[in-house]
């Protein structure tokens, strides 16, 4: 997957029904994000470019077809979820098109005014304890909503969670579409966004661990940890060496958040640690139980 090289004019040509197209984000390595107005509503327009090395055997279009259909279904599933904490899909569901001799993939989403948590952390620093609880509660609501369709997000990370500037609510962005288009195997490719993977998510060949919503809870745990402490729980704060992250995710027990930031309650620290347990059976067996413990942690703080 790569970021395509597209200008506003190109977007206008690809999506003629959109107006007021603006560049929103070109900092990601995988996606190029614009905004535009369709039927009077502002949407985010996201563009990706499949890697031409996808060919292997068979023609390129065969392979593109092969990888696209799954992503289309995931977008459809998101469209069926009701929660306000999961982004809404716009009028353009996932499409593929050849543009200027290059294939591109694009789709539209509700445009959310605000920052993603990666940006938020950089500009505002860590979240307050009450915002942390809100984050856990709202994003777990989104996870629950997907799980009711037996879907897993697979790509929960700070860059995929928006904080609405209007009300401070948290919204989970697009599912792990990116992975379907990846041309690197997990063991060979760069660590990249996989530093938010659960232990079981790193394991394709070993079919002993099928993922369920508890895998997303683990990723949420990393996000909460990072938003609480400013540090990734599996990256050494001194060396910042992200080389070992995947191994640490599988084996290392992180420092309790309360040891890093002492205005957190022990209860909240424990809830976050429990999300980060190595085995699904050691996390929460229902979103409800997780939210109840969050509530208890919140009451203890008050």
């Amino acid at each position, binding site marked *: 997957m790569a970021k395509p090289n597209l200008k506003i004019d190109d977007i206008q040509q690809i999506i003629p029904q959109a107006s007021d197209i603006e560049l929103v984000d070109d900092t990601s390595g995988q996606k190029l994000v614009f905004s535009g107005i369709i039927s009077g509503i502002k949407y985010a327009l996201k563009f990706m470019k499949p890697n031409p*090395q996808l060919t292997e*055997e*068979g023609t390129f279009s065969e*392979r593109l077809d*092969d990888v696209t*259909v799954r992503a289309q279904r995931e977008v459809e599933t998101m469209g069926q979820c009701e929660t306000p904490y999961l982004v809404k899909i716009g009028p353009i569901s996932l499409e593929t098109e050849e543009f200027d001799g290059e294939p591109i993939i694009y789709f539209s989403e509700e445009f959310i005014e605000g920052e993603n948590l990666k940006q938020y952390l950089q500009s505002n620093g860590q979240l307050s304890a009450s915002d942390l609880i809100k984050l856990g509660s709202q994003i777990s609501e989104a996870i629950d909503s997907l799980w009711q369709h037996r879907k897993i997000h697979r790509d929960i990370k700070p860059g995929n969670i928006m904080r609405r500037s209007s009300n401070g609510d948290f919204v989970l962005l697009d599912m792990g579409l990116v992975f379907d288009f990846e041309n690197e195997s997990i063991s060979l490719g760069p660590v990249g966004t996989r530093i938010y993977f659960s232990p079981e998510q790193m394991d394709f060949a070993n079919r002993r661990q*099928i993922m*369920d919503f508890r895998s997303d809870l683990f990723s949420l745990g990393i996000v909460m940890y990072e938003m609480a402490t400013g540090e990734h729980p599996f990256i050494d704060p001194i060396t910042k060496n992200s080389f070992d992250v995947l191994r640490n995710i599988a084996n290392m027990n992180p420092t309790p958040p309360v040891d890093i930031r002492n205005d957190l309650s022990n209860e909240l620290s424990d809830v976050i640690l429990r999300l980060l347990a190595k085995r699904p059976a050691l996390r929460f067996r229902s979103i409800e139980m997780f939210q109840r413990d969050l509530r208890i942690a919140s009451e203890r703080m008050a």
Partner: protein
Amino acid sequence: MSVLAQCGWGRGGKIERGLNDGVINGVIMSPRDETPDRLENIINQWGQSYPGAIVLFDPQFYVANLNAPRDGHLGEYDYYNNNSGLGRAQFSGTRIRNYVRECLDYQHDTFGNNLTNLVSPSILFDGFRDNWSQIALNLAAESADYHDSGLGKPQPLLISIVVSETAFQAIDAVEEFLDALTELNVAGFYIIVRRNANSPQFAMEPRPFANFLYFCYVLSEINEYKVIVGYSDWQSFLLEAVGASNTACGWYQNLKQFSLDRFRPSLGGQTPRKRYSSAPLLSCPLINPELEDIYSANLLSSVLSGSNHDSLLIGGPLTNEPAWTNEVSCLAHWFSLTSLSHRILAQTGIENKLRVAELIMQDSALVYQQLRNQGINFDTQTDQGHILDWQTAIREFRTITRIYDANEFSK
């Protein structure tokens, strides 16, 4: 004739041409690589145009217990999409029932008599005593039960078995599983062996292969089930020698041997180099340099399989390499496999079939020797290692089954 086309992406016109040329006897369809509409049209069309051909639909339900697999169009099939991402706790009796019913109903309702058999949904497993093998058995038993009582007048049922090569390491586990399988009252089995992804050799290890041959033998010869082996490539003639009624092979590497790579995020890679399917060598030498070297040594005729396509290479393999398209390569390979099958299936009785299979390998070893004497070198994917492995496997198979060569003793 017994070779079937193992389908995947890039079907093009290969199937029709293979059927018309008489180098395949039918087809195993891959829903992963077709939209439901396309698939329905093509199968029902074939059912009319090629009434003698075997047409099977592999439900590929075994993808449902992989972690976020690259499952292509499968998600457009309800029997799969409703039931994917299955952990081991997702197999209550009721759910097993539903998986099976949705899958068999789909085949029955959509294709009717245009399919030769219904094929049961199955799950990949790595050992005959592990938990996934039990799920496979549950699905098989449910399929047999439902087929017996739940469908009107269905086509006969094949139980699909998708199992890792390593499972065949220990014969006692194989035998125990056979004891259970042979309780099933069904027409037969469609068997896929999952190969290790990066094995350069297409021959299975001798011990697992001997046990796999035994597995096919017990099902077909002893228990009189129809046995169809998918993704069997060059091993087809040996499987037929021990009782398999059909084998299957496709055009890309991942349709010749089954591995999970097909369902994984892609590793990328280049277009593979062109190869020639040589029945005398029981392998596919590279057109450049291997076949060209053989040509230069004036030994081309000793490795040709005898199809019409060979004429493309008469002026030297490289001369016409561009004409040796993917499609030609595929048809020529089917021709090779089918010609070997013919030699096996012309025999009656497993004793005679085994002897002919051994002669084929013996002849092949002689050709290799002759080429080696002329200084021709092969890479590991083409060299004769597979023949030695198979010969070992057949000897072991004879020991297990106590089917000895009568001529051997009379010498």
